[in-house]
């Protein structure tokens, strides 16, 4: 048993170190409202949802193979949490000048053909992505309304298994559950990974 225990000790030490070493924390920072074109033909902002307690904001895109794994989960999460006044908004902040597959036209085609049941928004000036410091597709945030401001309460991965949702630990949804229950978010920050979002200078 001894070696196993040592291993766990070493492992937890590493986990602690890597947590301490993480910088540029997003948690507790306020983000601005925005007004973005929606693939359903309208224009969407946070203020479009007067009853919202919070939002799941997921940065995603058309072409990234890893981001593509999450479409069905976005539908399910939006279905479940919209009813609890925490809707999901998907935002595409990819540079459409460089990536032809990320044009608004192709976003609309994708939202139609794959039956997106959540708003898919076009951040063509990349201002929202920059405001959130979104790094990858996908990169998930949970923001919560506190004293009239939108505060980031979760940043990172949607869950911990892209290809096998049935095996995944749903970190973003857990954060929403914590907030809905008026608890501190137990795991407020995880690493996001996927295709990198490059910002125009």
């Amino acid at each position, binding site marked *: 048993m001894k070696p196993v225990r040592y291993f766990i000790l070493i492992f937890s030490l590493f986990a602690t170190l890597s947590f301490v070493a993480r910088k540029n924390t997003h948690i507790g920072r306020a983000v601005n409202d925005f007004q973005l074109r929606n693939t359903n033909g309208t224009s969407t902002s946070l203020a479009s949802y007067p009853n919202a307690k919070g939002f799941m904001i997921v940065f995603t895109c058309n072409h990234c193979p890893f981001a593509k794994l999450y479409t069905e989960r976005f539908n399910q999460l939006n279905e479940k949490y919209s009813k609890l006044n925490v809707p999901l908004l998907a935002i595409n902040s990819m540079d459409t000048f460089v990536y032809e597959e990320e044009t608004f036209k192709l976003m609309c085609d994708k939202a139609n053909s794959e039956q997106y049941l959540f708003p898919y928004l076009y951040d063509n000036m990349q201002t929202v992505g920059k405001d959130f410091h979104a790094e990858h597709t996908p990169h998930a945030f949970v923001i919560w309304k506190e004293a009239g401001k939108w505060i980031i309460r979760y940043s990172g991965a949607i869950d911990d298994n*892209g290809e096998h949702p049935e095996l995944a630990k749903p970190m973003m949804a857990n954060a929403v559950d914590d907030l809905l229950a008026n608890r501190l978010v137990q795991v407020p920050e995880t*690493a996001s990974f996927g*295709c990198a979002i490059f910002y125009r200078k």
Partner: protein
Amino acid sequence: MRHFKVTSLIFICLLLVANIHAQTYQALRIPDTLSGTTFNLVMKDTFKQILTGQQTITGGINGDFWGPTLIVNKGDLIHMNVRNKMNDTTTLHWHGMHLPAVMDGGPHQTIPPGVLWQPFWTVTNNASTLWYHPHLHEMTVEHLMKGLGGLIIVRDTDEAKLALPRTYGVDDIPVILTSRRYDANNQFVVQNVSYGDYMLTNGTPNAAVSLPKQFVRLRILNVEIERGYDLGFSDNRTFYVIGNDGGLLNAPVPVTRVKLLVGERVEILVNLSNDAIGSSFDLKAYNSNQAFGFPGGEPNTSGQFGSLLNNIDFPVLHINVAASTANPITALPSILINNTYWTAANATVTRNIAITNGQPGPASVPFNFDNVSFAINTINKTVQKDAIEKWTVTNNNVFGHTFHIHDVEFKIVARNGNASSVGAYESGWKDVMYVPRNENVSFVARFTDYADPIHPFMYHCHFSNHEDGGMMGQFVVVDTTQTGTQTVFNENDFVVYPNPASSRLFVKFNDINTRAYYIRITNILGRTLMMLPQPELSNGVDISLLPAGTYFMQLTDLKTKSTVVKKFVVE
């Protein structure tokens, strides 16, 4: 009853062992092949299930980690359609190929995201195992770490005449060696990592392969960041080196160990004729107790220069012996091909390169050559076309390195000044050589064809972290016998038609001797869509993939290297 219990206990134990083995080993992935004369390669960001749990973000060429093996024939004119669908600019270099510098895919031939790059050349290399990989300066570590790259097998008639194993994936096996370190989310650690902790052989962890009971050929490539491998088999059997980086040796060289540094390839024959079907053994790295300076010999198990695989012997491929195939190779050829090597006496130019800097300290400069770090606009050496040159690389520095040169295959002629110190196992054509600490190594090469005073070839350490740090230089090959009058090339010198065009766009020069050197097609926003080095224009340019709209063709002519822009419309 007691006896029965013990037997069943043993049986259960055996089952458990079998089960553990079944879980431990994974079938070695054999990369798909592409053959012919036109190759479509799509570079993309993707992911792969490598560990249990979260998938790992990787880079792929037509796949998810490590690209297809390209099979090409000496003498063929081959065309590459390289499309970059990654979120990042990159390049694709044809390591070991003799081709024009503008096709080479070095740091100058950048491919922005979304762009199609179409180099082409006639294969003049001998039958050999080459490879392709990104080569963007300061990004090589990151792009190689993602798994971008692939093997190239060159075939020719001399090799085809020999009784050698050459059924790909059956008795002719690609073995691509690398390792990775993972973070808590199963992602590759890219920053400040010289060595991985866990092997990936052809992208497979804990790889195992079934090989037939006969002579089998392994084409082994080291695609590590820094680690070298001192390869041998777990039963210390003798095996036979038949090829180096640039092709077959004159005759097989029997060895029990062979060192393979980053970028090097070795082709070996292994005799499985005497192995029992169902038996198994390992190809292993015997990396413990190496002389100081061997990369991967450091004792640390973690940190930038440490690894769980450092300074130990570890398996890189588990081999299970299976039944022989229908037409097995059962004998070792006594001779292979008749190479004519350059000797030191053939060299008319001698160059010396010292490995400098790299020592830790407050004013530390990363490793470089002759105290000069790579600068993209500096040509470090000028070589006369057809010259035979002897280059000596001297490493009186703190650690071992490799030296790789583009454009040519060379012959190592001396280690520390002694021809006799060059190993028989490295006696063939090479394009990467190990330069251990406290050693100088000399090679001789002939720089034929493809003179181009503007576009350089690279020479560099193939440890990609050293290369990214500036341990790289550039040379041009010039032809001083060619003199031309410099007339300015202008927009009246050619027409582009039809306009509007739909599937093909043709270029007609007023002077039939004019040749296009480079064509870049951009859209109205200035976004580059196609890059065509030295395009062959008799059949026009295929523009069928361009949506209707207005475009610009930037055409650079071969003679004056001046660029003219013309507008055209696609309907």
